[in-house]
């Protein structure tokens, strides 16, 4: 096998981007995104098999290096991207039908998503810390316009915050990289910014400088992963971004940024011992969980609720990384994939709820089970999967992380984290069940529905997603108009639920058995922890 396979994960999305530039977004090209995502996933799988057999591959003049972690992250990127790409065409059609987007917006959306995927794949595979930095910053630039796609006041505000906070965080990481480079340049022999060289030279690095560098890099890349203290961009950006983009940001962007933190931790462990990175990550994880829990309880917007839940899960992942050891690291990686799939499903479901109801406020959504049973089922099951019910993989990985936490002597911290996770789970269930089951006035007249919601809803015309057109067909349309117009929106809705069902199925299959992925997880965990 030659280097071509190393190019596929970057070239496939770039080719997708070229397709959208050349032909625009139309029914024929709407599936190009799915094809490119499938290619990324397939090349990740092929590379993973290859790495397991022959060890890490270096190619393209040493610019690219694929080890077990990189191959696994390619699988994560491809899987979540495929999920999002499967739901994007129907979502875009819904936006266009609702008058919130034009075909031109759809073209730009698809183009930017492809560029985003290319940058993410490059960030995962780059052999050099500097190149990783460049590609992660490039994703900030690309996604800024996706976040601000709607051009409403709230969307522009979210995009501004996103760019300013993420660029600042990533600048902090750059300072860390430069200091690490300075420390490395004083080690005998030529040590550049190559991950492998840095890890092997780590025991000789100056501890004082490395300590500052590691702290800066963890905080900096942690910003992009949605970890405290620079986390405040996350709920705004996830709340305002289009649904497929929220799914991608939650499942891919946060995960890739955290995989960089994992690599930094490997350097830190070798240079400074386990204690430094552990203390830092435990503090960050608990702070992230605390912020997420406190803001989840009284949340009024369901997309923001899901965003805070993403923060929670990244907090759990950071906690698992702090516990360290091969088992915890494997659980962390499994959690990254499981969370990416489930959260992708939920954000895509949230996008469909937004289309069905016209509002992203929890109050405005009632009795989903009665109105859109398939979608409601997907969202309900997805939330159960998210809070760690078996058979979904989140259960297995959370269990692994908790056990590792107690095993690593982090007893009190683990207990505190568990309490916070429980609070968040309770809040999530309460909010979701209100959206799914609560009936304004039980089985009363259907005409009650708008009037019951009226004390809260009509005074919010400034809401970004509330042009009148999408709001009206939802509740009155289903009850008063004749059968034909109601059957029309229902039909694509059922088909649109297919990717959600497949995502949930994949996650539960992963929970029953990791299958061939188990070997990849083990190999990645071992290479990160330095275990034999």
């Amino acid at each position, binding site marked *: 096998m030659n280097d071509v396979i190393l190019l596929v994960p970057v070239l496939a999305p770039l080719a997708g981007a070229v397709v959208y530039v050349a032909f625009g977004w139309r029914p024929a090209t709407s599936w190009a995104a799915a094809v490119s995502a499938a290619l990324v996933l397939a090349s990740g799988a092929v590379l993973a098999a290859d790495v397991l057999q022959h060890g890490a591959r270096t190619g393209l003049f040493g610019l690219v290096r694929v080890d077990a972690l990189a191959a696994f992250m390619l699988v994560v990127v491809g899987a979540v991207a495929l999920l999002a790409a499967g739901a994007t065409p129907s979502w875009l059609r819904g936006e266009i039908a609702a008058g919130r987007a034009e075909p031109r917006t759809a073209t730009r959306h698809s183009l930017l998503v492809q560029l985003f995927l290319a940058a993410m794949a490059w960030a995962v595979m780059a052999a050099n810390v500097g190149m990783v930095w*460049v590609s992660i*910053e490039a994703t900030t630039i690309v996604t800024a316009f996706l976040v601000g796609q709607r051009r409403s006041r709230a969307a522009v505000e979210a995009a*501004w915050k996103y760019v300013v906070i993420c660029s600042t965080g990533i600048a902090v990481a750059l300072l860390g990289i430069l200091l690490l480079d300075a420390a490395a340049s004083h080690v005998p022999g030529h040590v550049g910014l190559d991950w492998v060289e840095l890890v092997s030279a780590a025991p000789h690095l100056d501890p*004082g400088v490395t300590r500052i560098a590691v702290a800066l890099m963890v905080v900096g890349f942690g910003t992009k992963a949605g970890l405290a203290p620079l986390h405040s961009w996350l709920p705004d950006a996830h709340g305002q971004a289009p649904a497929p983009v929220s799914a991608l940001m939650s499942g891919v962007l946060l995960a890739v940024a955290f995989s960089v933190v994992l690599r930094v931790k490997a350097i830190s462990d070798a240079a400074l011992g386990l204690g430094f990175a552990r203390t830092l990550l435990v503090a960050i994880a608990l702070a992230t969980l605390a912020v997420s829990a406190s803001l989840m309880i009284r949340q009024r917007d369901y997309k923001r609720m899901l965003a805070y839940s993403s923060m929670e899960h990244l907090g759990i992942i950071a906690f698992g990384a702090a516990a360290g050891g091969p088992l915890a690291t494997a659980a962390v990686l499994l959690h990254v994939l499981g969370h990416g799939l489930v959260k992708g499903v939920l954000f895509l479901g949230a996008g469909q709820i937004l289309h069905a109801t016209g509002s992203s406020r929890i109050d405005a959504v009632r009795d989903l089970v009665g109105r859109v049973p398939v979608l409601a089922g997907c969202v309900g099951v997805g939330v159960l999967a998210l809070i760690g019910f078996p058979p979904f993989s989140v259960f297995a990985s959370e269990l692994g992380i908790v056990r590792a936490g107690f095993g690593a002597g982090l007893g009190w911290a683990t207990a505190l984290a568990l309490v916070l996770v429980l609070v968040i789970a309770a809040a999530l269930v309460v909010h979701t069940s209100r959206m799914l089951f609560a009936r304004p006035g039980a089985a009363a007249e259907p005409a009650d529905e708008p009037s019951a919601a009226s004390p809260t809803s009509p005074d919010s015309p400034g809401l970004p997603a509330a042009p009148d057109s999408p709001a009206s067909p939802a509740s009155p349309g289903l009850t008063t108009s004749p059968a034909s117009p109601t059957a029309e929106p229902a039909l694509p809705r059922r088909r649109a639920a297919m990717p959600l069902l497949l995502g949930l199925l994949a996650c539960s299959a992963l929970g029953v058995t990791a299958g061939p992925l188990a070997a990849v997880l083990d190999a990645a965990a071992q290479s990160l922890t330095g275990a034999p």
Partner: protein
Amino acid sequence: MSEALYVQLLDLAGGALLLTAVVILWRRKLTAIVRVFAVQGFALSLLVAVLAAHENDPTLGGIAVGLLVLRAGVLPWLLRRALAAAGEEQHETRPLVNVAASLLAAAVLVLIAYAVSQPLVELFPSAASTAIPVGMAVVLIGFFALVTRRHALSQLVGFLLMDNGITAVGFLATTGVAFVVELGISLDVLMAVLVLYVLASRMREAFGTTDLDDLRELHD
């Protein structure tokens, strides 16, 4: 270049970096801030040019020229254009922390920068590395400006201050990272500023102002 001249020029450039950072914190008129920012870009490229001359490194000299074009030319030009488009609201009206307190904070930040950079200076004592705390101080002052200013353009300047500081630390602490990486970094900074520039004009469309006080749609 003689050693004494090298050290003097290095100190001059470092001093100019720090002084301009403090002046940016002190001034409230945005046009003046942008002008001072251009001076700082010049000081930064002077710093790199001095290092290049000392080490006889033509690549580093090329980078110094690139920095001069970007940080003293392109970026200030973009900021001025954004200001011209913004019209009359050219004052940082209500910073979260007033000017006197900001200057005091800057003094504290410089002290912190010296304390934090100790291990770096000790690692390889040289004329260049003793200037590292200056770069660190500029980073911290930039971050302070970023979090305490409320005008979109002042925040942008704060971000760019951080970036200048980081670049200075990078060149003082190492002989420079790989050229490809440096190129990527500069491109990314330029792109980020362009994105923010576009967003600022959209903000003006949507809000009628770029005062971030009006950004109150999203909160919990």
